[in-house]
Each structure stands twice: as structure tokens, then as C-alpha cells.
């Protein structure tokens, strides 16, 4: 249970004794869970107040759980970001206010703060080597805590089998759904289970069942509403009341939730997203859905057009999209689309924080490459490449130490791109597919390999914080005299699950307070 009590009267009395201000006191409460997942090791707080006319930033020391922000001018309708940092500047806690607040005398601004934890979930397959039959099953979601500096190894997991993780401000949810064995398709109704961000315990599943295989999710900053796209519907889930309502029909592959300035909620989504490999498909539809409340929740759908729409993102009441065929970043509103940046390459993933966008760019070729670039949304400065890497996987012969084969990816595609800790981190997940022909002279068999990798980088420099190859699955076609058994090697700076049993695909990834 969160401890939200705030002795405002006592503090104001304390302030009164200082006799330093004539306008009164404003109090900022950083609300931590008071549980095992509390941020630890911080020595300062960085507070950013976003107002209509500009931003104000304060970086002040924390002493015995309190801090002094000095003097502040009154502001109205401010949103607040808070980052708890260690002496070395590492972010060990981050939080964001869910709604604009007034910075006025006597006000208490409460900002939930949590550790920067990234969660990822996906299926697992197991192939019987004797029969060649593959079985797909769900697996528990894994998480990595960036505040501890521990290398991800897959050993930290949540309870319950999960196919999709959704964050909504400081709230976290598992989406659970059955898997069809042996093809790995999601089947049956999906259910949503709240997860405590204080100790990772599971709550009572929400009422309502989602039809269709779940594809993507997003949540509002106050944790009250979730959007979930499936192969059949776009759902609005009321996490407080515990019900789900379909607000649009169709296959919604990428979704983002927009908090409008009038307090209403809209969704922007990519419907029928095309593959990002091969010829660029312009058959995706970008839709805007206004949520209509009342006795029955429903959506008013506006089609914004057809094109190569590959991803959507939103922040501070604005929605954005990328078009993989045009190489374009643009803003979406109910009344239409407005191109912001172009000539970006094959843009397939997007996350936005404030006026800055992070864009995933896929580069076909052999090996296929992926790049992460950042650009101001409306600026003219050239986009900055944070990384651009070829997808290469080395496999090694199990029984012949030192025998290795380097494979170049045929395809490398972004699955997710999200910003964590208010802009300190950017995380991506990438799926790569490799094929290798038989090399008779070397006794290398024909083989195919599929990998999923999570890469967390410093958002400003692109420096790698974590590289976790959560999934590596190969199929070997050995002939006479070929080396029959192979396993994936890890590169320097890359980690992998500590044991095969905890491997799973990275079909879903999210940060607490993540921005996509």
C-alpha cells in the first residue's frame, strides 16, 4: 500500500517559522511504494516542471528523505517529472505526474516515483530433437532493473505466464492468453492482471475478456485506462472498474493513447500494419479513435489515411507516426496528418518524449542492419544516429571448441522502441533471422537461426547500457559428416539467459512510465 499521507499543515507551520517567504509553501511529494522495490541509493532529485510558457528544472540534494526546492514562482497547469539520482548521476528512480497541477500556495504536488525497470515477455518453443515436433508455450515475463546495474540474465521473472506487458504511468499489467501448440498463435480470450510495482505481486484479474490475439498495448499516465490492440478489436480497458470495451474493429498492431487537453482520451493506432521486410507495403491504415464515455463506452473512428504506417507514439497530448515507405515522421491529429521530418530511411519504430523523437530505422541487406536515430520533431537539425549495427550472430559447435560460424542476418526488424526514466534510457527489441547454407569443406550444415535481442542505450549518447539476447533458436539440417550440434555464442558486452530453460522471445517490452 502506498503511503500518501502528507503533513501539509505541519510543513507549512515549519515554513512559517523560517519567515522567508510571503506567498506560502508548495509541497512536492515523491510517492514511493514503501516496499521492496523502493528506489535506493539516491542523493539528489532532479525536478522538471513543464508549464505552458516554459520549463523549469531544479537539481537539489536529498537529505533524510527531504529536499528544498528554493523559491518558486506560481504556475498553473504544470506537469512534473522527477528523477532520483545517485552521486554519479545514475537514475535510480523516475516518476511523472499524471495530470497537470497548479503550483500555488498550499498545494501539494504528488508524483509517483518508481525504479527504472524494463519488463519483457514472449513465448517459448521447444523442439523434440527426435521427432522434430515443436511445441509453443507461454512463459513468465522477465524484468531487468536498471537501477542496480546488474547484467540482465533472465533470472528475474514475474509470476504468471504473460504474452504482453503494459505499463500505465506507475501501474503495470500483465496480459495473459493461451498459446496454440504447435504454431505459437495466441488463442482464446485474453485477460489482464495488475502487477504491484512495489513488490511484483499479482492482483486480481480485471473483468472483461479480450477477443483476438493481443498485439500491442498502452496506458494512460494515471494508470486508469489501457488500450490493447488485438487481431480483432481495439479495446479500451478501465483498470479501475475492471471492464473492457471494444472501441474499434480490425487488427490493431500498434497503439498509442492520447490525453487531450480537455481531459478526454483518444487513441491513435496502426491498423493492418505491413511487414517491414521486402517490398514496402502501403496498405496500413492510420486511425484516430475518440473515446465516447457514458453508459456504454464506444469509439468514434476517423481514418487518417492509408500508407506505410509502421508505428505510433504520443506525449503531452500530441500523437505521432512513422511511415516506413516514405521515411517520414509526422504528427497525427483527428483532422489529418502533418509531416515533420522526412528522408529518414525505412522508419519502423517510434518513441517520443516532449519535442524529441527516437526512431528505429531498418536497413535491408546482408547483413540486415538496424539503426536508432534521434531527432527533434520540428527542428531542422540533422537526425543523430545513436547506433547503427549490422545483425550478426556467431554460432559455435558444441562438441568442437573453437569452431565458430558467423552468420549475417537476412532480416532484422524492430519489435518495440520505448523511452525509459523520462529520457535517460531508450530500449529496443529486435528480431533477426539468419540462414546459412551448407559448407561442405568445413562440415558446416545448413542452418537457420532466429534471435531476439533487447538493447538498452543511453538516450543522449547511444552508449550501450544492456544488451540481452533473450532468445536464440536454431534449426540444423546436418548431412553425413556435418557437425550436428551448434549453439549461439554471445558477443562481448552481450548477455544471455543464464540457462536455456528461462529463454523466451521478446514479443513485448515496456518500462514503468515508459514513453512510446
Amino acid at each position, binding site marked *: 500500500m502506498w503511503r500518501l*499521507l*502528507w503533513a501539509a499543515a505541519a*510543513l507549512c507551520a515549519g*515554513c512559517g517559522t*523560517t519567515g522567508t*517567504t*510571503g*506567498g*506560502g*509553501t*508548495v509541497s*512536492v*511529494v*515523491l*510517492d*514511493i511504494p*514503501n516496499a521492496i522495490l523502493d528506489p535506493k541509493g539516491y542523493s539528489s*532529485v532532479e*525536478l522538471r516542471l513543464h*508549464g505552458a*510558457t*516554459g*520549463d*523549469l*528544472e*531544479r*537539481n537539489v540534494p*536529498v537529505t533524510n*528523505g*527531504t*529536499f*528544498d*526546492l*528554493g*523559491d*518558486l*514562482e*506560481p*504556475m498553473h497547469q504544470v506537469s512534473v517529472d522527477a528523477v*532520483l539520482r545517485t552521486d554519479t*548521476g545514475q537514475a535510480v528512480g523516475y516518476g511523472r505526474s499524471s495530470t497537470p497541477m497548479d*503550483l*500555488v*500556495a498550499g498545494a501539494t504536488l504528488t508524483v509517483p516515483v518508481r525504479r527504472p525497470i524494463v519488463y519483457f515477455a514472449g513465448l517459448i518453443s521447444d523442439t523434440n530433437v527426435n521427432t522434430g515436433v515443436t511445441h509453443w508455450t507461454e512463459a513468465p515475463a522477465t524484468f531487468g532493473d536498471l537501477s542496480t546495474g546488474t547484467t540482465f540474465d533472465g533470472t528475474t521473472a514475474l509470476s504468471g505466464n504473460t504474452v504482453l506487458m503494459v505499463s500505465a504511468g506507475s501501474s503495470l499489467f500483465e496480459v495473459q492468453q493461451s498459446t496454440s501448440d504447435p504454431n505459437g498463435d495466441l488463442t482464446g480470450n485474453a485477460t489482464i492482471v495488475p502487477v504491484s510495482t512495489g513488490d511484483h505481486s499479482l492482483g486480481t484479474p480485471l473483468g472483461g475478456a479480450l477477443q483476438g490475439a493481443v498485439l500491442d498495448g498502452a496506458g494512460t499516465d494515471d494508470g486508469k485506462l489501457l488500450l490493447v490492440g488485438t487481431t480483432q478489436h481495439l479495446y479500451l480497458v478501465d483498470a479501475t472498474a475492471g471492464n473492457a470495451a471494444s472501441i474499434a474493429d480490425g487488427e490493431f498492431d500498434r497503439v498509442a493513447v492520447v490525453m487531450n487537453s480537455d481531459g478526454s482520451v483518444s487513441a491513435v493506432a496502426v491498423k493492418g500494419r505491413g511487414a517491414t521486410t521486402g517490398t514496402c507495403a502501403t496498405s496500413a491504415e492510420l486511425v484516430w479513435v475518440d473515446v465516447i464515455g457514458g453508459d456504454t463506452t464506444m469509439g468514434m473512428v476517423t481514418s487518417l489515411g492509408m500508407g506505410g504506417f509502421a508505428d505510433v507514439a504520443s506525449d503531452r497530448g500530441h500523437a505521432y507516426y512513422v511511415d516506413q515507405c516514405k521515411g517520414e515522421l509526422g504528427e497525427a491529429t483527428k483532422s489529418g496528418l502533418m509531416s515533420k521530418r522526412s528522408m529518414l530511411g525505412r522508419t519502423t519504430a517510434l518513441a517520443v518524449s516532449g519535442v524529441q523523437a527516437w526512431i528505429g530505422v531498418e*536497413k535491408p541487406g546482408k*547483413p540486415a542492419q538496424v539503426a536508432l536515430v*534521434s531527432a*527533434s520533431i520540428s*527542428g531542422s*537539425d*540533422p537526425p*543523430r544516429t545513436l*547506433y*547503427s*549495427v*549490422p545483425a*550478426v550472430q556467431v554460432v559455435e559447435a558444441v562438441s568442437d571448441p573453437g569452431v565458430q560460424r*558467423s552468420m549475417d542476418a537476412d532480416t532484422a526488424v524492430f519489435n518495440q522502441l520505448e523511452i525509459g526514466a523520462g529520457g535517460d534510457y531508450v530500449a529496443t527489441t529486435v528480431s533477426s533471422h539468419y540462414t546459412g547454407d551448407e559448407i561442405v569443406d568445413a562440415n558446416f550444415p545448413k542452418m537457420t537461426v532466429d534471435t531476439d535481442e533487447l538493447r538498452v542505450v543511453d538516450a*543522449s*549518447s547511444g552508449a550501450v547500457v544492456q544488451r540481452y539476447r533473450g532468445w536464440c533458436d536454431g534449426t540444423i539440417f546436418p548431412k553425413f559428416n556435418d557437425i550436428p550440434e551448434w549453439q549461439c555464442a554471445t558477443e562481448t558486452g552481450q548477455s544471455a539467459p543464464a540457462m536455456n530453460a528461462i529463454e523466451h522471445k521478446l514479443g513485448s517490452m515496456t518500462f514503468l512510465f515508459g514513453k512510446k
Partner: protein
Amino acid sequence: MTRVLVFLCLLAGLARADVDPKRKVIVLEYRSGSSAMPHIADRVVSLLSKDTSLNVMGPDATRAVYGEHLDLVIVKCAGEAECVARIGQKVGAAEVIMIGVSELGDVILTIQRIDVPTRTVSARFADSVTGGALPNDQKLEGYLKKLLPESDFLRYGIIDIISSESGALVTVGGQHRGSTPIPALKLKAPASYEIRVEKRGFQPFTTSVQLPADGELRVRANLARPGGAPAWWQHWYVLAPAALVVAGAAGGTIYFATEQSPAAGPLRGVGSIQ
């Protein structure tokens, strides 16, 4: 896997430090019958982008500007400086980093730095490795630091300190920087700096900032007398629009409007973690 031979030929005077640290540099790859050291050019691009402020274009980006026939032209050039420089000239680069991979028993890695205006090799590096072992990032960085001026690996950011009072003494990172008004300071980055602005009769202003590489911070120090109140134009929300027009190269300008005199503002901000 053992390095058996290293050549280093830095032509005197050309690896000079007075070159533009943000100049446009393209990185190209030329292979002579060798598939060793795959993606070496991309790795060099990645390292240069991380370690320097150079405007670096790799083979893909260069191809997008130059045209699909880039690889044919590189092969025709066969590493010859004047020919390669013409590629750089066409894409508007100041320099070309040409990486060559060939095999003469061992795998030979050569890295040439070609000055586009003079069409000459300004620095050249070669390393020979048995088995075509991939040099790790640390080793590649070592190669590049031998090839490029030391100044390329120094990165800077800008702190612009504006005080409400003229004649206030400014101290940044423990060093006196003069009295306000002072010009914007170009400082090594990324780094954190303690800033102090003080003037007799006013509450001193202190803050700590994290200066990102190629970033720009604007710090407004509104000094106030004990018990006094700032004029209306000193309020941060009046000053904010002026700050927002400054566009930073990396991440935009971060605006610090910090009025720290406890008696100046009408509100006192206090906080707790609970």
C-alpha cells in the same frame, strides 16, 4: 590471432589539431579479395559517432547521396587518394576515412585519412593480424586515435550564464570566469559543473549542472537582496521564451532558471520522499 606487424605512418603536420572538430567525414571500405573483418566500416562509424563530434557518414549514408555506383567507384579507385578524395568532394565531406582489408597470408587492415581539399593522404595506419581476428572496440579506438587529431576526441558543450545583476562574480567548476555579463563558456563535456554567481549585497546563486556533449545549457541566475523581491521581468516564465529559441545540437537546450534566493519568490518549494 597474434598481431605480427604494425605500420604507422602519420604524415607530419597533417594530423594537426586545428581542424574543425565537427567537420563532415565519410567512412568507406575497400576490400581486396578478403571477407575478413566484416562490418569494420560500420564499427568505425559507430565509434567515431560515439567518441567525437564529427559529422560522420558511413558507407550506406554516403551511397544514398553519391549513388548506387559508389562501390564500383571505390573498387576503381583501388585506394588511390586523389580518386577517393573526389568521392568525398561530391558528397561535401572534408575528409575520407578509407578502410582497406586485404590478405597476404595474414589479413592486412589499412586505414587512410584522406584530406579532400588537398586530395592527399594525411595519415595512414596499417595492422597485420593472423587469422583475420576482429579487433575489438578498444583496439579500433586506439587505431583511430593514432589517425585523427587528439582534438577530435575532445568534446564540448556550452554553458551560457546570465545573471540578473551585472558585476556578479561567476565561478564554474571552481574556476573564476569573470564578472557578469560574460560570454557563453565552452567547456569539456560530458561533465558536471558547479556554478556559483555572487555579488556583495545579494544572496549567492549556486547550482550543479550536467553538461552533455554538444549540448547547450542556459543558466539564469536571478540574484536578489535578502528580503527583497525580483522585478516582474526577472520571473522565470518571462525569461523562458527567450531560452527556448536556442536549439542545441544534441538534445536541445536545457534551461536552468533557478531563483535560489530564499526570500525572493512568493512561494517556497519543499519536498519529501515518502
